[in-house]
Each structure stands twice: as C-alpha cells, then as structure tokens.
C-alpha cells in the first residue's frame, strides 16, 4: 500500500502532465511560426511596416520615441498590421506569450474535480493577472 502510494506520488500529477503537454505543443507551433514569419520578413515576401534595411535607423531610440515617430501600433493594434512582414512575427511571439494562460485554463477543471480549492483560486487569479498583462490596458509609453 505504502509502495503504491509512493509510486503514485513519484509520477507527475494529472494536471502537471496536461500542463506539460499543452506547453510542448504550443511551444513548437509558436517557435516554428516565429522563425517562418521572420524568414517572410527578411525576404520581403510581404510588405513591411518598417523594412529590414531601415530598422537600424530606429533601433537605438527609446520604444516610446519609436512609436511616436512611426505612429507604430501599441497594445493589440498590431493585429491590423499582420499583413506586414514585421508585425506577422508578433503572431508567433503572442502565441508563445499566451501559452501559459492556455495551460492554466486547461488545468482548472482538473483542480475543480479534485476539489483542490487553494490551487483553483491560485490558478484563476494567475489567469486574471496574465489576461490583465496581455490585455494592453497596462502599458508604458505609447500614444
């Protein structure tokens, strides 16, 4: 009985395994998207908001000056520029940055089934924190 209990606890928990699975799939998709979109940007397959050859003119300025000078999008406004090679890269980056929210949301039902109240609260609060960060409400600089 004791051995059986040990074997159970030595294994990663159900929610931990699910979290790992989603993280793994999402990470691969995100990285492939980032690399593919960067190739599209570098080869000029799509028009760019800032062409690669012009980027050195801007990369030494503060982000708020960059936004101000080019009227570049902040928050989620980049979504309306995904037809531009440079902002296409943001799709993969946003997927990588959003993956954790998905993972947390996926384990909440398991935690609820286990009636693991403290962790249900922690997971829901974490989703709220990350959604707030992702929302674009909290940003520095910009217009």
């Amino acid at each position, binding site marked *: 009985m004791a051995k059986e209990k040990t074997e159970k606890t030595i294994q990663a928990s159900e929610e931990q395994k699910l979290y790992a699975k989603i*993280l793994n799939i999402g990470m691969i998709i995100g990285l492939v998207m980032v690399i593919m979109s960067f190739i599209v940007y570098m080869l000029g397959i799509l028009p760019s908001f800032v062409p690669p050859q*012009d980027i050195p003119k801007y*990369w030494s300025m503060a982000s708020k000056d960059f936004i101000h000078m080019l009227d570049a999008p902040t928050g989620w406004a980049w979504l309306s520029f995904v037809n531009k090679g440079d902002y296409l890269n943001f799709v993969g*980056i946003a997927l990588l940055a959003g993956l954790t929210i998905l993972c947390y949301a996926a*384990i909440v039902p398991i935690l609820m089934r286990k009636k693991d109240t403290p962790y249900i609260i922690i997971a829901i609060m974490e989703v709220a*924190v990350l959604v707030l*960060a992702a929302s674009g409400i909290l940003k520095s*600089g910009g217009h």
Partner: protein
Amino acid sequence: MTMGKQLTKFLLVAAVFLILFAVVGDVLASAEPSAAPQEVFEKESSIPWWAWSLILLASTFILGILAVLGGVGGGVLFVPLIGGFFPFHIDFVRGAGLIVALAGALAAGPGLLKRNLASLRLALPVALIASAAAIGGAMIGLALPAYLVNILLGSTILGIVVIMATAKKSDFPVVPKADNLSQALGIMGIYTEQSMGKDIDWKIHRTLPGLILFIVIGVMAGMFGLGAGWANVPVLNLLMGAPLKISVATSKFLLSITDTSAAWIYLNSGAVLPMIVVPSVVGIMLGSIVGVKILARTKPKAIKWLVIGLLAFAGLRALLKGLGIWT
C-alpha cells in the same frame, strides 16, 4: 590534451571573440543609444543591416553555450552584454531578453514537468506573486530613463556576480518540519535522484518569507528583462529548503510564467523588435543545444568562472554607460 581541456580552451576563445564582436560592433555603430530621436534618425550604421542579424545570431549562439555551461539563464547574460555592446536601445534589449528567457523556459518546461523535477505545486503560488510583481517591474522599467536603467542594471548584475561567486548550494537542505502554509498548500513531493538511485522525499519551510522575496524578484525580472533564475534558485533552495534539482527545474519552469506577464507589457508598449528578438531566440536556443552536449565533456567549474567574469565585465559596462563614463 584531453577533450575537456580542448573544449574549455575553445570556449575561452569563443568568449574573447564574443567580447571582440561586441566591442568592434560598438565602435562601428555610429548611432548612439543615448542620442536624441531625430539625431538617431539621421545617422546610419556603417555595418549593413543584415550583418547585425548575423552578428547577433553568432553572439547569442555563444551566449547560449556559455549560459548552459555556467548554469545561468540566457536572459541574465543577454541583457547586459547585448545592451552594453550593440547599438540597440535598452528598451528593445529588455523586450528581447524577456522573450529569450521565455522561449528557453517554454522549451525546457515540458520535460522538467513530465519528469516531476519541476513541481507545479511549488511553482504556482510563487508564480502568482512573481508574475504580478513583474508587471509592475516592467511598467516601472519602461518609464525610467535609459541612463537610470543602465545604472540600476549594472548594479544588479554586479550584485548577481557576488551572489554567483559566494552563494553556496545545498543538494538536500535539511527541513526539520514543513511550515503551516506549505502544508496547507500541499507543497511537497518525491523525485528519483538518479545519481544515487534513490527516491528523495522533499518538503519546504519558510514559505511566507520566500513568497515575499519573490515580489522583489518579479519586479527585477520585469524591470530589467532578466530571467530570474539567479535569484529563484537561492530562494527556493537555501531559504525554502527545496532540493537543488527541484529548485533549478522549478525555477526554469517558473520563468515561463514570470517572464510571460512582463513580456506582454513590453509587447503592448511597442518595445519588441522582431529583428532583435528572432535571431536572439534562435541563437540562444541553438547554443543551448550545443551547450548541453559540451556539458558532458568539460569542467563546468572553469566555465562558471568565465561566465562570472563575463557578467562582471557586462555589469561594469552597463554601470559606466549609465553614469556617462563609458558611452
């Protein structure tokens, strides 16, 4: 000469090249990060744009190798070195640093979780505190002027050098009794220590002071765009009493959550440039893969001191840059 010595020699040469790349690039880049926007707009770098991507890729590849061998995250090397010697503004470097650290953590996370080395029960409460604090850190960091960020970054990096050089680690810290909070949260576990062929039971104590320290760690991670493994591991291991392997693995996984919240603030604030982010992520990840292979054949202790030396140099550079002594 043994293979290990040859590899150590190669890495020393690679590190020297890395510094040379960076210093030469710094001299050749005519655009000064501290210059006014219009002034910058009118200046052109003497290096073609595509060459910067290749230099960045090569530099981050070496950084990726050194980070694995030195036992540090890529972000802590990336931000001071790339920020100190490349012509990019510190805003974009910090944005890229967070995504570099995030990508590394996301890549390592699934394996660590599946093998039960990273503990979700330990990570979740800590991550909630650290990720909320990292949002505040990112907002403060982006609001500060570049010179002040460099002064604070340089001071922090030099502090990290002291921690790395002096902090002791404990494979299996003694935890006489789990505290009430960790018991209430059920933070404990068992993992197989393969080097000993033994199952190790672990529990933690001093949970509340540990969680409070993660507020500071989160703020610093967000403010400077650093992965915070250098701080996570000592707190989890020495203060809270988690075994070293559990601390290192949980810390790595933790970065995928802490850095996510800060990365969103940088992304939403327009402080992310794909031209800097993508070569850096690819370079660090390829370097990490090579680094893991080299790790088996070389003496990590020699490399650890090389990394500490590099960090000291980069920290000093950031500090002097911020103070206007070495611009």
